[in-house]
């Protein structure tokens, strides 16, 4: 009943846009929304902070103070006294399961969602 109103090219557009919707859903919804960051210092949980509001947190470690920044539902280690700066260069963490560890200063930030899918992720 609707078919006579849809032309060949219309079908092409419908197919392409359905593909786009599926692509958007898969890319934006599979990576689970991280909703809090667990900050550890010396192996113990230092703080658990929600990602919903932007803030910076100073975490003390054996070498000095690491600064952790939370912005736009992302978290990163903004500065750290470690010599090689691996965790700072790791940049923004966005998805649940991502983790940045500053080994020399024994500080880590891990993003968690509502349920944990992986024990850890490494790159």
């Amino acid at each position, binding site marked *: 009943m609707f078919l006579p109103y849809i*032309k060949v090219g219309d079908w092409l557009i*419908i197919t392409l846009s359905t593909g786009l919707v599926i692509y958007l859903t898969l890319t934006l919804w599979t990576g689970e929304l991280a909703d809090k960051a667990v900050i550890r210092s010396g192996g113990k949980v230092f703080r658990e902070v929600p990602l919903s509001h932007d803030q910076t947190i100073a975490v003390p470690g054996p070498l000095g103070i690491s600064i952790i920044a939370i912005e*736009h539902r*992302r978290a990163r280690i903004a500065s750290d006294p470690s010599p090689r700066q691996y965790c700072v260069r790791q940049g923004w963490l966005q998805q649940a399961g991502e983790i940045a560890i500053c080994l020399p200063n024994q500080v880590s930030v891990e993003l968690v969602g509502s349920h944990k899918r992986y024990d850890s992720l490494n790159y």
Partner: protein
Amino acid sequence: MAATNAMTASITKMQESGVRSQESEACTQDTGEQNSESRILNPESRIPNPKPFILLQTTDEDHHVARMAAVALGLTLLEGAIPSPLPGVKPGLANIVTLIVLVRYGWRTAVWVSLLRVFAGSLLFGNFLTPGFFLSLSGALISLLMLSFARHLPQRWFGPVSHSILAAFAHISGQMTVVYFWLIPNAGLAYLLPVFAAAALVFGILNGIIAARFLKDN
């Protein structure tokens, strides 16, 4: 169609005769009647030669645009009564009118109808110059831009359904851009995108089919 044209013609004729009767009344002021016009035309007025009222010269096309925009407005109001599961997900029924106008009368008329609907609709709903108004406006402008390209697609293969889907996607991308850069600069917005995109697809197809049906019937 013929009947409406005749109606338009009679309206213009009435307006013309209206002008003439006003002029003749201005010449012979001493009728003794105390209606509003004669008060305006008071000979003791300090303003020389006061005009009874401003009469805009309108063309048939203006009437047509106004009529179409009125239909679109009616659909917008109707749509406001439909409860929506998620704020921002709306069928966009008024766009059916834009699609029909685009095919029948061209892009310029479609721009007129669409923008008149946005402005007059915001006045009716009382959200002129609020964020909601700017969201409708940005959506309408981007859709019209998209339609200006989409209407050049070969008509043999691409019909109103294509126009509708493309415009619907343009609409939400324009709105999401405004929302992200102006209202809610938060990456969490991306999680709503699949919902809006799916709604754009479904309602885009439906509106397109309805518009195609109207175009084929007449």
